[in-house]
């Protein structure tokens, strides 16, 4: 009994100070979070208001509502077709990356190759260089020799090459976490390796394929350097490159066009993300949801 009551007098006076300290900590934490949130929200806010403002500035403000900006953008000969070009490049690259990464990841996951993990990490390390600025000159040279300058295929191939290692890495994790007994079961029934891939493996790792697809599209959508260097005319240029040309005669950034175009440019990727995420579940790790 005495040992129970002894600590009470010592804690009693400190209780209010503890509460105050707790409150201050909470206030501090939320202030910090708000600051961070504001930092990220303001550009988005600008993206939401500026396109509808007849005199947009670089600050976010309540717009004087107009749709003129959109009309002006439609008059630009390359704006809309550039979005279509972006779709071509992104879809082509995503298709290549998903297909080849799935095949490679399946093989790497199921076959015991000595030094497999070293190979994977090596590829991953090198991939950040392949589409990086440092290799632009040799890549340009390569594309030139292969007659792939000013060709969408060239851009797609180079972007795919850069994305493949990371895609393989992500997908291998999904493949590793599907039990081999599914495939063995199908094998005993006489399924061929491609049938096993189509009927069993692909449906099981579908969230992984969706993740890699979205990730590839987002990467291509935002890539400026590769299409900028490899594609000559504005007729094939994707949106990321066309955005760079939206200037007034005076050489100033045309904020009315730029803001409107930015909105159109970001919407498809955001919508795709929401769609894929709700449909397949967006995640970077394997495991089967039954």
């Amino acid at each position, binding site marked *: 009994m005495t040992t129970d009551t002894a600590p009470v007098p010592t804690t009693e006076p400190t209780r209010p100070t503890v509460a105050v300290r707790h409150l201050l900590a909470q206030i501090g934490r939320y202030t910090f979070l708000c600051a961070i949130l504001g930092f990220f929200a303001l550009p988005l806010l600008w993206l939401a208001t500026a396109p509808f403002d007849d005199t947009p500035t670089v600050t976010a403000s309540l717009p004087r509502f107009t749709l003129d900006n959109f009309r002006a953008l439609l008059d630009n000969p390359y704006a809309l077709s550039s979005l279509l070009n972006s779709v071509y490049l992104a879809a082509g690259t995503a298709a290549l990356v998903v297909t080849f990464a799935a095949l490679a990841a399946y093989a790497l996951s199921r076959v015991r190759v000595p030094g497999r993990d070293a190979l994977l990490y090596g590829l991953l390390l090198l991939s950040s260089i392949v589409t990086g600025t440092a290799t632009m000159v040799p890549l340009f040279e390569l594309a030139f020799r292969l007659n792939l300058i000013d060709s969408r295929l060239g851009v797609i191939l180079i972007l795919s090459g850069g994305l493949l290692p990371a895609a393989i890495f992500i997908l291998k994790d999904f493949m590793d976490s599907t*039990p081999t*007994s*599914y495939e*063995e*079961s*199908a*094998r*005993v*029934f*006489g*399924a*061929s390796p491609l*049938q096993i891939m189509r*009927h*069993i493996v692909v*449906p*099981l790792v579908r969230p992984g394929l969706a993740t890699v697809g979205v990730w590839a599209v987002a990467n291509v959508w935002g890539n400026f350097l590769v299409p900028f260097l490899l594609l000559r005319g504005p007729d094939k240029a994707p949106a990321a490159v066309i955005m760079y040309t939206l200037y007034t005669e005076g050489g100033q950034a045309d904020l009315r066009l730029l803001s409107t175009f930015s909105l159109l440019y970001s919407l498809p990727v955001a919508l795709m993300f929401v769609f894929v995420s709700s449909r397949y579940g967006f995640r970077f790790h394997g495991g*089967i949801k*039954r």
Partner: protein
Amino acid sequence: MSAITMRELTKVYPGGVRALDALDLEIADGEFFALLGPSGCGKTTLLRTIAGLEVASGGSVRIGERDVTGLPPGKRDVAMVFQDYALFPHMTVRDNIAYPLRIKKVDRRTRGGKAADTAEELGLSGLLERRPGQLSGGQQQRVALARAMACHPQVFLLDEPLSNLDARLRLEARTFLKRLQRELGVTTVFVTHDQAEALALADRIAVMEGGRIRQVGTPTEVFRRPANTFVAGFIGSTPMNLIDARVHGGELAVGPARLPLPDDSHGQVTDGERLVYGIRPEYLDYSPTAVPGALTGEVVVVENLGSVSLVSLDVPADDTGPADAGSPAGDAGRTSVQVVVPEGAEPEPGDTGWVVPRPGRSLLYRDGTLVTATATAEVPAPRAGAAVRS
């Protein structure tokens, strides 16, 4: 429906594990055959090698008239049920059952109908549109069986088909499995490490140890006349008592006790020879009063098994011989003898008891191998009539 014949079958895994060691085995057409053995003895490996999922390092496998050793799994005309059932989680029960037919390019409507028929036979009719994740363990097992049946294979291979079920369901599924196999008459090999399951289900059992087969026989043979001390210790819900004994003037001496020689060892043993005397706890009778010549000792443990109790006695035994001379010569060792005692007759720990072997139920082992009337064979094959002695 075909027999399976394995000759000198060997499987060495990369890394050097010899999971199958020159194994010879014949499984008859239409037989329900159990592979039984402790964990790691190579049961799954043998099953997977028959299926073709593992490539044999040596030897051959024949199914019916065909040598399938070099064939891929899909060409062997077998169906396998995996321990985890391996039902495809993204397909409905119907699509799962129809999958083998899909591979055989049967059109969607026909295979859907056939799947429904098979499901009906196994009592799965109401579950056709469900996913495997929405089924109970027992239902999953039946879907896996239905999928295996749907492709009408010559051979069924089942890897621990009942081990994922809880105890009550397991009994039910056991009966179901036995009936199904009877009706289909397809050669079936199943793996289990549960000896009760093997005894209850199989027409014949192969007991394996370390990649080899230690005995093949009907459940009765394997239970009544284990060919060696390994099988003797493995088969039976309570392991057989294996007691060191010495032949002495036409009787067996275990310490001060004198036991009669088993019937068929007459003329097979020499006076003074050291052997192992084997008797199941079920075939010993417990007596609280003195019986001349019987094994006697103090009751150490009484385990209640429901309708019977398993009583362990500490019995003075014959000295284990000069080989392991832990004790000075002449000083008798002690051994534990287990006996099954019916309800109501259980002694208390500390009591002194006597145990008497029932006639015709004891066995003798020389160097771990059964001593029989017909020389010492590794795998005795007594005819059904001879096996039932008493």
